[in-house]
């Protein structure tokens, strides 16, 4: 991510997949969930669509049959940091591997009209920004992709997408975007409240003893 005097910027060419309900099984199929690592998922992103053969964990991109028609295999979209898609992106399984695969591929922002709840949450914890836009804005952006290679610039602090003369604002809760901007760790934040958790637990053990048996 770049920064300028006004804040952090994600910019560049937008890759797009014109589909609703892209579930996390499509973002990364179950086979790759066998990894016990948190990194190294870039070659398996959208595996079923990116390749014409069946993959296995450990087999790299170079050994696969690439589907040249899939957008992420085409220049310049293979370098995209921004993904544009439609409704309910990331629905389905809770696998955080879906976000890890996007992150490892280099995707820093996903623009969609809505997201699966668990995916949405997982994204902020891994530096991927999910941006919800109105359907008409999504339609507009898809329209632009049909005319040229669409390039956008996203300003995180201002919560704005800049496209030529046009500015599209988006809403995201401050604490969520702060997690991306400052790379905050949730465990550290919560452990500052340690005493409150202990006190709560003590009372609960007394009042609801059956929980603790």
């Amino acid at each position: 991510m770049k920064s300028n005097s006004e804040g952090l910027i994600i910019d560049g060419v937008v890759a797009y997949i014109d589909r609703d309900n892209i579930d996390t099984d499509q973002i990364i199929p179950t086979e790759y969930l066998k990894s016990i690592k948190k990194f190294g998922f870039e070659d398996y992103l959208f595996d079923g669509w990116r390749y014409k053969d069946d993959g296995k964990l450990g087999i790299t991109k170079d050994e696969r049959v690439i589907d040249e028609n899939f957008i992420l295999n085409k220049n310049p979209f293979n370098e995209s940091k921004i993904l544009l898609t439609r409704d309910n992106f990331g629905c389905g399984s809770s696998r955080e591997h879906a976000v890890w695969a996007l992150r490892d591929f280099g995707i820093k922002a996903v623009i969609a009209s809505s997201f699966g709840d668990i995916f949405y949450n997982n994204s902020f914890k891994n530096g991927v920004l999910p941006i919800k836009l109105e359907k008409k804005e999504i339609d507009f952006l898809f329209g632009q992709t049909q005319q040229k290679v669409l390039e956008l610039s996203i300003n995180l602090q201002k919560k704005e997408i800049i496209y030529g003369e046009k500015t599209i604002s988006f809403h995201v809760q401050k604490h969520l975007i702060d997690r991306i901007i400052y790379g905050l760790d949730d465990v550290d934040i919560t452990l500052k409240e340690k005493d409150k958790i202990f006190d709560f637990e003590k009372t609960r053990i007394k009042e609801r003893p059956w929980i603790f048996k």
Partner: protein
Amino acid sequence: MKTLYDKLWEEHHVTQLDSGESLLYIDRHYLHEVTSPQAFEGLIKKNLKPWRLNANIATPDHNVPTIRGNNFNSESITDEISKIQVVELDKNCNKFGIKQFDIESNKQGIVHVIGPELGFTIPGMTIVCGDSHTSTHGALGCLAMGIGTSEVEHVLATQCLKVSKLKNMNVRFEGEVNENVSSKDIVLYLIRQIGTAGGTGCAIEFSGSYISSISVEGRMTICNMAIEAGAKVGLIAPDNKTIDYVKSKSFLDEDTFAQAKEYWKTLKSDDDAKFDKEIIIDVSKIKPQVTWGTSPEMVMNYDESIPTVFDTKEENKKNVELARDYMGIENETKLSDLTFDKVFIGSCTNSRIEDLRMAAEIVKGKTIAANISEAIVVPGSGLVKEQAENEGLDKIFTDAGFIWRDPGCSMCLGMNPDQLKPYERCASTSNRNFEGRQGYLGRTHLMSPIMAAYTAINGTIGDPYEI
């Protein structure tokens, strides 16, 4: 004034953080081998231990082969990568002292099946697991939801989850269902009505006369698929049935149980509770439901024609086209015209004893159709398996040509040896018909155990009333 969700939320609310989010105290945390290794790694790196050990219960389910027989252990898994994950769970549970029903245990099973049946899920709890179908446990009046791996680490380390409050949605199912219609059909019908994003951002409470009339197991099937309607949380107020169910599984002493019971009775939405959204569904007209496409919302009555791009609204044409293409559906076709290759009865949606009884009822004394190359029944847990065998269900299935397996997620997802081959068409009681979910290029049709059993015998989808 308060909904059940509001009450459970307040009961577990530890504090509000500066960010505006809340810390919710977590009573029960289930772990399995797929979404936990990176969380344990994080814990170790931070030099932390689980906050409260006895909150955690673990079991391997996703990767385990379902043909195991005797003397099988983690090391016996032939897929080297699957083995690493299962062995890693063993290691982590041993290292930290977490209770695990390991692959050798007769109580091992799908995490959402074993939790309630071993008495670890009881009403009023907050329950999380690194698995989206954690919503299942809501059927017992719990605030239960799926979380990601970072959150698994967070819950291990702090016994809390950092969350914002969801909206309240009420789905009331009223009326009596037709014969051969099960709770699976009801929840699929709901998804057809509201779509896979219909419950996004909501906790859905299921209520109404239909819910009261069905078993706790049937309720689990409904809450299980709340996530397929977009909702992280599905829940049902505990009633006498719930309490009887919990009592039969409980390891609590009499006094503690009696004390808990008084509290559980308070766990319901107030009469004047305000919901952000309310839906009423008359279940008496619902027919058996079967999916035709690659999203659970692509579902319809078993006797309908599959949508074509011509009878689809403009904005959905593309989705329909892609799904038809993937599913190998040509021309104008009815569901009943499709020929099936495999049948899978199992998964955390439909692998409990009641599901197996329903399927066995249909199968009894019959033989699977010639076009079905494989029909498998995979009990959800060691205890379900044992119970079914005591009732002779295994014999009914095997006599009909089904294969009777050991417990696990099995063909619900392509992580273990039970997978579809490319282009195979499967009648499945699981919950997701996503592309490749049951195996590379496999074609999944979701349905109830009754319809799956019928399809096994008949070779195609048909009228389950004629059986």
